[in-house]
C-alpha cells in the first residue's frame, strides 16, 4: 500500500481544510477566477505560466472562466488595488502573484468579503483577513538539490547563477543552490550571482558566467530566463531552470538537451488546492509549500540526473529529516 509523499500531504491539506468547514465533495459547476499576474505576464515560461497551468489543472474537476490581468513593472500600489478590485467584481476567487500584492489584496478583500483571495508569495509569508489565504514556498529546498546536482555534474568545477530582479524568491533560489553545491563539493567555485531585468542583461550575464568558466548556470530570472537558457545552451553548456519543469516547455524545445534539471516551484499546486479549499469553504492563513508537500523539488526529465539519483535522493531525505537545512538567504 503505497502513496506518493506529496500526494498524501496535499490531500491531507485538503482534508484539514474540510475539517475547517470546506467542501466534502468535488467542486462542480462553473467557477469564475481572477488571476493577477506579476510583471513578466503570460508567456514568461516560469512564475506566471506555472500559475496559469494551475488554472488548467483546476479544469480537470470543474469548468473555469478565467480573467487575468498583468502588473506593470514598478507600478504604484494604487494600480494593483484597482486591478484587484476589477477582478474581484466579477469573480468568486482572485489569485494574486507576488509579494507586492499583499497589502493591496488585504485592503480589497475587506471590500469584497464574499470573494476568496490567494496571495502567492505574500510578504514575510503572512496574510490577514477572513477571506485571504497565502501560499509560501520553501524554494531553497528544491534549489539546494539542484545545487547538489550541479556540483555532482560539473566538469569545470565552476558554476554560476543568474536571478531576476523582479522574480520573487530569486534570492531563495540562489541561497539554496549555492548551499547545496558547496555542501556536496566544498571546493567548487561559484561565480558571483548576477541579477538581471531585461533579456539583453540576461544574455550579457550568461556570457559573463560562461566566460568565467561556468559549465552549469542556474537561472531564476523569470521572463528573461529564456534568454539565459538560450545563451547557455547555445554555448553547449548546461542550464538549470526554475519554477516550471522547463525541459518540457515547447518554447524551449531547441535548448532541451542542455537543461540539466529545473528547481520546481509548484505554484500550480497551490492554485489548485486553493480552488479545492475555496470552492465551498475556506482555509485562511498561509500554507508552506515545501519538499514534504511536493510544493518544491527538482525535475528529473531528460534523464541527465539518473546516474546521481541515489545521492540526490539521500539528500532529499536528509532535508526532509531536517538533518540538513537549506538557507533561505544567500551566505556571505
Amino acid at each position: 500500500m503505497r502513496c506518493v509523499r506529496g500526494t498524501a500531504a496535499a490531500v491531507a491539506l485538503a482534508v484539514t481544510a474540510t475539517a475547517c468547514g470546506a467542501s466534502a465533495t468535488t467542486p462542480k459547476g462553473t467557477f469564475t477566477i481572477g488571476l493577477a499576474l506579476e510583471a513578466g505576464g503570460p508567456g514568461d515560461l516560469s512564475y506566471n505560466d506555472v500559475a496559469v497551468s494551475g488554472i488548467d489543472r483546476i479544469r480537470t474537476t470543474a469548468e473555469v472562466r478565467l480573467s487575468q490581468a498583468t502588473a506593470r513593472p514598478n507600478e504604484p500600489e494604487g494600480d494593483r488595488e484597482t486591478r484587484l478590485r476589477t477582478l474581484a467584481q466579477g469573480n468568486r476567487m482572485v489569485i494574486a502573484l507576488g509579494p507586492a500584492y499583499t497589502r493591496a489584496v488585504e485592503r480589497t478583500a475587506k471590500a469584497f468579503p464574499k470573494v476568496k483571495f490567494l496571495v502567492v508569495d505574500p510578504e514575510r509569508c503572512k496574510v490577514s483577513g477572513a477571506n485571504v489565504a497565502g501560499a509560501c514556498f520553501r524554494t531553497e529546498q528544491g534549489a539546494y538539490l539542484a545545487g547538489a546536482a550541479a556540483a555532482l555534474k560539473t566538469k569545470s568545477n565552476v558554476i554560476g547563477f543568474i536571478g531576476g530582479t523582479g522574480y520573487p524568491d530569486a534570492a531563495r533560489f540562489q541561497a539554496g543552490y549555492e548551499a547545496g553545491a558547496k555542501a556536496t563539493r566544498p571546493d567548487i567555485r561559484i561565480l558571483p550571482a548576477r541579477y538581471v531585468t531585461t533579456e539583453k542583461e540576461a544574455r550579457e550575464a550568461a556570457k559573463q558566467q560562461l566566460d568565467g568558466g561556468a559549465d552549469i548556470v542556474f537561472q531564476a530570472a523569470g521572463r528573461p530566463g529564456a534568454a539565459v537558457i538560450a545563451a547557455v545552451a547555445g554555448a553547449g553548456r548546461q542550464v538549470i531552470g526554475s519554477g516550471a519543469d522547463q525541459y518540457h516547455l515547447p518554447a524551449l524545445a531547441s535548448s532541451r538537451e542542455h537543461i540539466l534539471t529545473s528547481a520546481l516551484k509548484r505554484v500550480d499546486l497551490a492554485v489548485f488546492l486553493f480552488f479545492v479549499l475555496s470552492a465551498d469553504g475556506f482555509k485562511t492563513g498561509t500554507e508552506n509549500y515545501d519538499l514534504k508537500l511536493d510544493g518544491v523539488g527538482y525535475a528529473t526529465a531528460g534523464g541527465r540526473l539518473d546516474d546521481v539519483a541515489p545521492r540526490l535522493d539521500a539528500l532529499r531525505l536528509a532535508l526532509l529529516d531536517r538533518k540538513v537545512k537549506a538557507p533561505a538567504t544567500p551566505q556571505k
Partner: protein
Amino acid sequence: MTITAEPDTGTGARRAWAAGPWPLVAACALQVAVRLLPSWGRDFPLIHPDEPGYLLAARWLAGGPGTDFTGMPFYQGGYPLLLAPAYWVTDDPGRVYSIVLVVNALVGALLFPLARAVLLRCGVRPGPASVISWVAALLPATTLYGGLAMSDAVLPVIVLGWLLAADRFVRCGTLGPALLASAPAAYSVTVHARGTIVLLVHAVLLAAMAARGPARRVALIAGAATGAACGAALAFNAWVSGALYPGGSFDLGSTMQDRLTSPSGLLRTVTAASGQLWAMSTGTWGLGAVGLIVAVAVLFRRSSPQPDRIAAALLLATTAGITLASTAALPDEHRVGNFAYGRYIACLSLVYALVGLAALLRRAASARLVAGAIGLMFALGGWLLLYLGERIDTYAVSFYDFPEIGPLGGSYLELRPLVISASAGALLLVLYGLLRWGTPKLAAALLVLNVSLTLVPSSVWRFVEETMPPSALPRTTGGVAIERHAAELDLVEPEPQLVYSRLANAVWWTGLQQFDPAQGPPPGVCTVIVSWPAGVQAAETWPQRPPGWRYQRSGALGALWWVVWYDPACPSGAAQ
C-alpha cells in the same frame, strides 16, 4: 490470573447444531450485509497500486488482458484466483469491483464460525461464544480491509483457519486436521509474502510432531502433502510473476537484508514491529493487548497444558515472523505509518482480540491483567514516540496508514500514540466494566465500537478519493499507450505507479502499451496517456501529436495529473 484454556468437548457445538444450520446461515448472511455496509455503492479501487495489482491479476487469470507491472511490488495470484470469476460475469471494472466486494464479504463472514470455534476452544460457553464471536468478527481490522480488493480481505480467514486446524491436529494427532491445516498454509504462500511465515511456522510444527510423539506418521504424510502443495504454490507464483512482471518485481529482499544486518536497521525493525503490535492492541480496543499477554503467559507457564502452549507458540511465532519480516522489508518511505502499521498484523488481530475476550468472559482476566494490557499499550506507544522523535511531525502521513486507530487519537493527519493508548485503555476499562452487567451489554458495546469505528475511516477514505475522481477515458476502443516515462514503475518515484495502476485497471478492453511521445502513437492506438509536468499547459503536453487528435485533462487525489490524447476518428465504444 487463571487463563488456561479448556478444550472444547464438542457438546456446545452439537447443541447449537441441533437447531439446524439456519441460525448459522442467517448469522453469516447478516455478517455479509454488515461487511458490505462501509463500502456500499463504491465501485472503484481506493488503494493504489495494490488493489489494481490484484484486480489485474484476476483479469488476466480469467483470460482477459494482462499488463506489465515490472518494478512494482509483487501482488500474488492466490487471492485473484477467488476474484477471477467476476471477470467472467462482466468486463466493466466498476461492476467487477462490486462483485469483488461481495466475494470479500462472503469470505469474511466465515470469520464468525471460526471465531466462535476459537472462543469455544478457549473454554467460553456456547451461548456467549456465539454472540461475542459474531460481534468480534466485525473488528475494523477485518471489515475495513474487506472493503478493498486486497489480500488482507481474506488473510484473517486463512490464518485463523490454519491456526484452528493446526491446534486440532496437535490435540488429536489425526490426518484430517493435519491436512486441513496444510491446505491454508500452502495456499497462503500464493496470497501474500506473509503466507511464507505461516508456511514456515507450519513446517516447524510438522517437523516437531514428526520428530517425537504418537502423530509422527501423520505429520510425515501432512509434511509431504504440504511440500507438494507448496511446490505447486511456488510454481503458480512464478507463472503469475513471469506473465505480469516480465522484468521482475520490486526486490524486497535487499532492503530486508540491510535492515537485519546493521544495529540501526535492527533497532528500526524491532521498533516498527512493536509499533505494529501497538497498533493491533489499540485497534482492538485493548482486547488484543490482553490477548497478547495471555498468549505469552500460556507459552511460558509450565503448568499450561502442552497443546495450549503449542497453540500459543504457533500464534506468537507467526506474529513475530510477520511483524519483523514486514517491517524489515519496507523501504524507507519517510512515512509515520511505517512505524505503526496495523495492516500487516491485521490477519492476527481478531485472534488476539478473541483470546482477550475469552479471558474476560471466563472471568480469568483480573484487574491486574487489564491494567497490564493498558500498561503494555502505553509502553509500546511511548517507545514509538521516543524513537520517532521529531519525525512524528516531519514524516508524511497517509489516510491509509492507521485507519483503525486514527479516530482514537482524534486525527488522521498525525499519529498521537499516547492519546490513542489512553483512548484504547479507556475503552478496555469500559468493556471490562460492562462485563459485570452480562455478556449482552459487552456485546452491544463491542458492536457499536466495531461498526462505528469501521464507518469513520471508510467514509474518510471515500472522501479522500472523491476529492478528485479520475475522468473516464474518452474512447473505449482501439489500443491504449502510456508514455514510457509515466510507466516506469519503481518505488523511488512512486507517482507513475499511482497513475499507471489507475489506468491499467480502467482500460478494460485491452492491455496498456508503452510508447515514446517523440515517436508518435504506435499503430492501432486510439488513446495515449502522457505525463503533465509542472508549469506545462495540458494542450502542450504532446507536441508530436498527429493532426486532429484532442486532449482531455485528467487527475486524481489532488496532486496527480496526466493528459489523455485521443483520436476522435476512432469509434467512442460502449460507455462504461
